[in-house]
Every structure is written in C-alpha cells, then in structure tokens.
C-alpha cells in the first residue's frame, strides 16, 4: 500500500523517500553538501560526452557510491529510440541498470511524450532495465506504464524547474488509487510545503533538483526538503483531522465560573 511499506524500487529498498538531482549546482562541493543534507539515497545523473580536456573535474569524484544509488536519466531525448539508446549507454557505464526514463514532447514545457514514453518503457523492460518513467499526472497512462512493467511511475507536479508545486493533487491521488508500483512525484516542487503536500497525498517518494540547486542556500533547502518529505509522510501515516467549515473548540467551557 502506497506510503506504508518502505520505498522499494526493483529489489532495492531506500530509507529516504527523497531522490535528488545533481544538475544546476554552482559547484560540486556545494552539490555534495546538499546531497548530504538532503539525506537522500539516490541521485540522478545524465549521460553526456566525457570532456577530453582535463580542465573540468568529474561529477563522480563528488558522489560516494557506497552512499548513493545512481539513477541515470535520459534527459534531452525526444523519441523512444533516442531514449532507449541513452538508457543503454547509461547501463554500459556500468553502475546502474535503473533508468529515469524521460521522453520529452516539447521544449518549452518539457512535458513527456507519453506515446513514445510507453514505447520506450516496453523496450527497456524487455531489455532488463528497472524503468522509472517520468510522465504527467494522467492516471490512465500511469496504469499503462505499470502494465508495461515500469518499476515505479513518476508523475510531474508541474513543469520541470517551474516551482509551481503540485498543480493537480486530485490526479496524483487518483494515480495512487489506480496503480500498485511506487508513485514518485517528479518535477514541480518549489519549496518545502510542496514536498510535504506530495507526501501527504500518500506518494511513495519525491524527486527534485531545481528546488534545491536553485535555492539561495541549496544546503539549507536540502535539509528543509529532507524534513518536509519526512513530515508529509508522517502526517499521511498519522491520519489528519477532517476539514470542517466551522470551529471546534480545543478548550472545553466546562469548569468555568458560572
């Protein structure tokens, strides 16, 4: 049941329900400290050409592989074929057979092309990958992805990097009621309460990058996100009070002087 069992993807269990991206940091040491502060166990990476001039440092020098599982993405891919290609290249690098599968449909919104995404998911699942597709908040598509063998489904809350929060919590809720594999809200989170809201819905996890990397103080924001995800998850488990239109006193009148 969503949000209850520990987060399990493929056969790995993860203590933290927060997955963090490695992009957009001012420098690697800041990224490294932010990852630590976030308490995450899984970080996303991209597959790109090595830079042959020795000037740049390597990302991997700043990621402790004993501490963090790597989740390679297929960011920047606009077709199933291209995404499949990048997933295979990622696997060749040899540190993970998981893939955050992105097939982008439009440059301005970076919304997924679900038709191509489903195609790529089927190919990669058959090919033995643990596939985590980045999709929109369409419960019907979420079900198709689960049926295609996705290890988790990652609906967006809002456009990548927009910080608009969970635009349509009602759809996320319906996705949670519709599929059995873990639901990880990916994209849209702007601040701590957004992450808490995602978890309060019963989501199994949250994935974010810009909200941390783009904050004025990424390390502090990473800590905020760790606590927000835990807070939202605990609140989900604790069972919130119902909303009421009127007040209900927390102090009884009984025992007042008549």
């Amino acid at each position: 049941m969503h949000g209850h069992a520990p987060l399990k993807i493929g056969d790995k269990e993860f203590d933290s329900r927060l997955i963090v991206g490695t992009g957009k940091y001012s420098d690697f040491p800041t990224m490294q400290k932010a990852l630590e502060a976030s308490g995450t166990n899984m970080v996303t990476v991209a597959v790109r050409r090595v830079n042959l001039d020795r000037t740049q440092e390597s990302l991997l020098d700043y990621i402790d592989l004993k501490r963090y599982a790597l989740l390679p993405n297929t960011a920047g891919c606009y077709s199933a074929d291209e995404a499949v290609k990048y997933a295979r290249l990622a696997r060749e690098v040899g540190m993970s057979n998981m893939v955050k599968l992105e097939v982008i449909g439009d440059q301005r919104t970076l919304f997924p092309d679900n038709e191509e995404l489903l195609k790529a998911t089927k190919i990669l699942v058959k090919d033995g990958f643990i596939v985590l597709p980045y999709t929109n908040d369409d419960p019907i598509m979420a079900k198709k992805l689960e049926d295609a063998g996705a290890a988790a489904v990652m609906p967006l809350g809002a456009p990548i990097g927009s910080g608009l929060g969970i635009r349509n919590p009602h759809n996320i809720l319906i996705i949670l009621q519709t599929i059995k594999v873990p639901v990880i809200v990916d994209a849209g989170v702007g601040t701590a309460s957004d992450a808490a809201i995602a978890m309060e819905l019963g989501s199994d996890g949250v994935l974010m990058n810009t909200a941390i990397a783009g904050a004025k103080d990424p390390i502090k924001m990473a800590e905020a996100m760790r606590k927000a995800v835990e807070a939202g998850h605990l609140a989900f488990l604790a069972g919130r009070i119902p909303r009421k239109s009127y007040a209900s006193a927390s102090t009884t009148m009984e025992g007042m002087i008549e």
Partner: protein
Amino acid sequence: MQITLNGKSREVADATTVKALLDELGLHAMRVAVQVNLDIIKREQYESAVLNAGDKVEVLTFMAGG
C-alpha cells in the same frame, strides 16, 4: 588515421583498439560507455574492437543532471 571523437576529428594510430584509445585518453574504462558508428561497444569487446579510419566514436560518462 583520422577518426571523429565526440564530434571532433582526431588522429590516432592505425588499428587502434577501443581499449588503446581509452588508455591514450587516460579514461577509466569502468566509468565510460563507448559507441562506434551508432553501435554500443560492450566493455568485454574493448580490446578486440579495432577502429577504422573515419569511425565516429563517442565516449560518454555520467554528468550532472536532474
């Protein structure tokens, strides 16, 4: 001979293997993926895979991303 490496042309010795190329580039074989003319070269083939003049070689690794 000339090959194209990550989009830039480069001079390498004739019959250079993928392994030789990586060594020459000083790249950790355990941390890269190699594609030659659209085919991914599996790690176990690095020693046997011989490059030809004009090959388009891509060497990729993990970079920052969300």
